[in-house]
């Protein structure tokens, strides 16, 4: 068999999740464009899980080193992404209070 059953299941999950992604975003006010982009960018840092799994082996080799570099990069993406989004959204709140 050319394509395994696992891959088919994974494709189903991918397509269904993509439909959810399409549906979840609608009528976003322009001020929220950048925070929404930044928030979803932080979510895409989920690739840190892949990095953790790729660098899981006990012995040192190129795969583990590449995986660990990916762990650091993806963690920066995640942490910075959520914090920066929160900073932006905090700013909106202060503005609303003032006016």
């Amino acid at each position: 068999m050319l394509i395994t059953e696992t891959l088919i299941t994974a494709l189903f999950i991918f397509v269904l999740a993509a439909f959810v992604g399409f549906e979840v975003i609608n009528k976003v006010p322009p001020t929220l464009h950048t925070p929404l982009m930044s928030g979803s960018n932080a979510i895409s840092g989920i690739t840190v899980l892949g990095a953790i799994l790729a660098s899981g082996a006990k012995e040192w080799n190129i795969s583990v080193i590449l995986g660990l570099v990916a762990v650091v990069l993806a963690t920066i993406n995640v942490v910075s992404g959520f914090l920066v989004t929160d900073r932006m959204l905090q700013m909106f709140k202060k503005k609303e209070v003032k006016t």
Partner: protein
Amino acid sequence: MSDFIPTGIHLVYLAATSLFIVGLKKLGSPATARNGNIMAGIGMLLAVLVTLLDQQVLNYQMILLGVVIGTVIGTLAAYKVKMTQMPQMVGLLNGLGGSASALVAVAEFWRLLGESQTIPLDSSISILLDVLIGGVTFSGSVIAFAKLQGIMSGSPITFPLQQLINVSLLASYIFGGFFLLTAPHNLPIFLSMVLVSLVLGIMLVIPIGGGDMPVVISLLNSFSGLAASAAGFVVMNNMLIISGALVGASGLILTEIMCKAMNRSLFSVLFSAFGTSSSSSGNLDVTS
């Protein structure tokens, strides 16, 4: 006891995915946006913590060290960046995510090469897709960052035969891909394909002008989601596939919304530097 751990991991993944979906939904409305962001953050924390319990993860000390280093750098960067620099900051973070996804693919390719003579077809297809999307996201984001930060000129860079070169780069990637599917033990070909993906990312972003940059960053955000999803296919992890697809799709919709707000189409943003449409869109660029 140890039988419970894999089931537990999957159940926590399910909870984390739900938090991501609800969080994204809430991020779209001003009153709930901050809560939405916090919910997504909690989902991420849960997902990372349970992944460390995976039986595949043996050297968790080194991984924890990596997470700590990333957290420190990420926190410092998030508080040092100025509010006016937000678009390029998001661009740079996109690039980090994309490069991490591509590195996962390269690491997995290396591991599979060491283990056996042949690489299963579905693994190699996922790896090649991940390298392409991740590589394009990385180098494209770096260029977008450089343009917005003023490190390089923000105006479109075009030269003769640019699109022909882009098409042939993509064609050479696909050709190299088919070659690797039949003969995976060819490291020079694999590495040059990594290089081609990076060049493609640069070529995609250099012809785009400063005012259109936020749209491009949004598109690259969508790409970084797709790259994460591709990494999910590489390591066969549902959490990655779902979250990546969520970001990929919602990022695409957001890109579309941003284009509409500027009265442009995505096509004209990406290709207006070429050919005739540049004159008609020129005046809009100034106002945006």
